[in-house]
């Protein structure tokens, strides 16, 4: 690529030429020189084009990644439903509509064999094996319909229930031939529709891709992030203040500085090993719990906050400290009344970026067992939980093809959260950035 360009002056500087006192000026109009200049300009254009290609390649990759994820993910937010006609009076269901109006409704419904009723209704409506067209969770939709309007128990009712994975795939993209045929038949009967899947945002993990939701993982993520923030933010800010404002320059402070800088570059999986060895095996904290995940991620996020905090504190001009000291403030008062409030926007920006990194982190949480199958959202900090990135990892391992779009949909949700956090950080930086 870089053809060696001979320097015209150096060529003239040969021993023979040096002896002749008169140096002939370079004839730039000569054909040789003209073509050399052309070559050099061509090389310039090539180089510039290569640079542009590099940038465009990176952008193209990013676009491709996002388009693939969003394209697959959008389908994950919808689900296919089948209209299931149920003849309640003719069914085996023994339910007293009066009991459903009272506070005992849940217990009455729990005892009823709704699964059997839904399966029987499907078999009658769609022929033998019609049950397999329905999702495993179809009876939940039946239960909700009864709860919403107990009077349907006395008549024949059409209830929209979620379809099986095969029908779902057939409705959205291509699926196995048998499913395609079944879907075509249903479509002809007008008994199928595809709509927004609210359950995806409110349910937790499940073995059936038509029933999964991300709320469980999202709640786990939120709980973990709360623990991380509560630990990493105060500790990070306080140590940044100490190192930047008070620490004497000696071997101890150097040691602290070196360990913070190194911690910021340690691979995240090492923090997972630390969490496993210290929090689980030594301190016997509960496995898979948000509190352990939060502790581990806090150790990982703290150095990021310290480094961002130190930069923000460093950019507060010394004149402010001098002025405060000059009117009699103590050194603690200078820092807490003047320096910290001025540095806070910068610290917050760094904190949000560190938290966004922690939110997308997977590897350390795998180490401390947050990869368990959790079918209900965690209710506390010590309950077993999983987090959004780990949920994505778990779903990506599933064999069932229905999980592909669910994984992408979860990725879209995760990316939206990260985008919002980074957007907030940029907004804060632009709004409060002060040039001294």
């Amino acid at each position, binding site marked *: 690529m870089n053809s060696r360009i001979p320097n015209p002056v150096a060529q003239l500087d040969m021993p023979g030429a040096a002896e002749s006192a008169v140096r002939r000026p370079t004839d730039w109009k000569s054909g040789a020189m003209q073509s050399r200049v052309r070559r050099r*300009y061509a*090389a*310039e254009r*090539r*180089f*510039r084009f290569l*640079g*542009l290609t*590099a*940038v465009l390649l*990176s952008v193209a*990759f*990013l676009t491709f*990644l996002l388009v*693939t*994820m969003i394209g697959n993910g959008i389908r994950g937010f919808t689900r296919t439903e089948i209209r299931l006609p149920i003849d309640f009076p003719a069914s085996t269901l023994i339910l007293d509509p009066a009991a459903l109006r009272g506070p005992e409704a849940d217990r009455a419904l729990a005892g009823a064999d709704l699964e059997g009723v839904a399966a029987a209704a499907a078999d009658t409506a769609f022929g033998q094996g019609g049950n397999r067209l329905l999702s495993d969770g179809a009876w939940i939709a039946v239960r909700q319909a009864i709860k919403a309007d107990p009077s349907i128990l006395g008549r024949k009712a059409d209830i929209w229930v979620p379809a099986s994975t095969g029908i779902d795939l057939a409705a959205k993209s291509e699926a196995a031939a048998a499913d395609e045929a079944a879907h075509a038949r249903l479509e002809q009967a007008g008994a199928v529709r595809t709509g927004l899947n609210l359950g995806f945002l409110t349910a937790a993990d499940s073995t059936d891709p038509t029933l999964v939701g991300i709320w469980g993982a999202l709640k786990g993520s939120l709980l973990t992030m709360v623990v991380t923030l509560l630990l990493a933010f*105060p*500790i990070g800010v*306080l*140590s940044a203040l*100490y190192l930047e404002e*008070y*620490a004497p320059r000696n071997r101890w402070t150097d040691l602290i500085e070196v*360990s*913070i800088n*190194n*911690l910021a*570059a*340690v*691979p*995240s*999986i*090492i*923090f997972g*090993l*630390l969490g496993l*060895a210290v929090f689980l*095996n*030594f301190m016997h904290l509960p496995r898979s719990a948000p509190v352990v995940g939060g502790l581990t991620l806090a150790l990982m996020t*703290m*150095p990021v906050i310290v480094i961002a905090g130190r930069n923000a504190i460093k950019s507060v001009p010394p004149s402010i400290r001098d002025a405060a000291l000059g009117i009699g403030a*103590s050194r603690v008062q200078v820092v*807490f009344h003047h320096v910290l409030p001025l540095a806070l926007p910068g610290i917050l920006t760094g904190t949000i970026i560190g938290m*966004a990194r922690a*939110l*997308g982190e*997977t*590897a350390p949480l*795998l*180490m401390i067992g947050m*990869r368990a199958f959790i079918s209900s959202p965690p209710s506390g900090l010590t309950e077993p939980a999983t987090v959004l*990135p780990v949920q*994505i*990892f778990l779903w*990506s391992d599933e064999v069932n093809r229905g999980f*592909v779009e669910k994984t*992408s949909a979860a*990725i879209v949700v*995760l990316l939206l959260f990260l985008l919002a956090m*980074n957007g907030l950080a940029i907004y804060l930086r632009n709004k409060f950035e002060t040039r001294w």
Partner: protein
Amino acid sequence: MTPLALLFLVLGLGLVAWFTARAKAGGFATPGAPRPHSRPNYHGWYVTLWAVIPALIFLAVWSGVQPGLVIDATLKSPAAAQLPPPGMERAAILSEVRGLAEGTIEAAFNPLSDTLLPAYKQARLHYGLIGAVLTVILAFAGGAYAFTRLKPDFRARNRVERVVMAVLLIASLIAILTTIGIVASLLFESLRFFAKVSPIEFLTGTVWSPQTAIRADQVGSSGAFGAVPLFWGTIFIGAIIAMIVAIPLGLMSAIYLTQYAKPSTRKWMKPILEILAGVPTVVYGYFAALTVAPALRSFAASIGIAGASSESALAAGLVMGVMIIPFVSSMADDSIAAVPQSMRDGSLAMGATMSETIKKVLVPAALPGVVGGVLLAVSRAIGETMIVVMAAGLAANLTANPFASVTTVTTQIVQLLTGDQEFDSAKTLAAFALGLVLFLVTLLLNIVALRVVKKYREAYE
């Protein structure tokens, strides 16, 4: 009373102390009297700290000691006479009793637990009450002592500030503690591993099959811990394939954006490139496994490469390289920007074109910084986990074929630690030995890189 309720009680007492002390100190500033040394707020904080800190320290110690005391008292009760001798069974019954008392278990499995329950509950109430009373007494005593010391010339501010400084120091020591924790836990578990497998075999062996069988006569029961294939896979993916992608793309993007692009273009393009670094690695891993790897495999099959695996080194390396681009690019950006403007101007004034200036002046001058940045990027790439876990496979092959499956250190750590394993087996301990190697290598790379970058910066300052 639960420790949490006690904690809130103590904090509440602290609040009361703050207001009382502040009210008292507010009265110090009377006209005619000498000016008090500290502001009323500092008097308030002084008393609060005295009321809260000793009580909280006691509470922390007590909640560590109390369960032991309760168990002791339970064992002394007459109902405990039928308990089996100390061992697994006894511990199981005792933990069952605790679960019953705390309401986490609804019914006991062992009938002995029910007989012990009253004694346990009695002891728990007894010691809980003692703890609560002592905590409250300490809080009152501390607060009262501090309250009596308040005088107009009392230096409350200096004392409060000394506590603040101590808190700041403790916060910054946590970083050191974390480092020590990492080194200690990795070293401790690794030493236990090296007691079972010799370090020389670990570092030079070429066979990696960590499965230790349950029965001795099973096939492949030996378990081999030669980590060379893992090290090779890590270097192959992280330091070779990823860098072949990341260095040219990152360097050229940095050059284009700093030297050629219009400021408005640069303002937009740079954040877009940074997004690449902000995408979570699990997303890259999913993308590599779902989209890139199958495409590469069919490509390899179409050009007739045998043995192409669906989990190829190339897929993981390529995607990892893209992830690293913004990292290399921003390091190169910084070091090119640090080259003095006069050198660039001098070269241009001599008639060199922009690309000649870049290739012959700027890049050579910025080279140490770029090299430092690349070393940091390598250290990041070899510590990267999710992409290789999802896309690189588990077969420990010693091969240079990019379409074959290789495994890496981080993949194996995840693999070894996520199964159901007893904690003492060589298999789980091997993960810590791998972690130790990874930690040391990344540490070394970071130190060298930072030193190179620092030295280079000083050269132009």
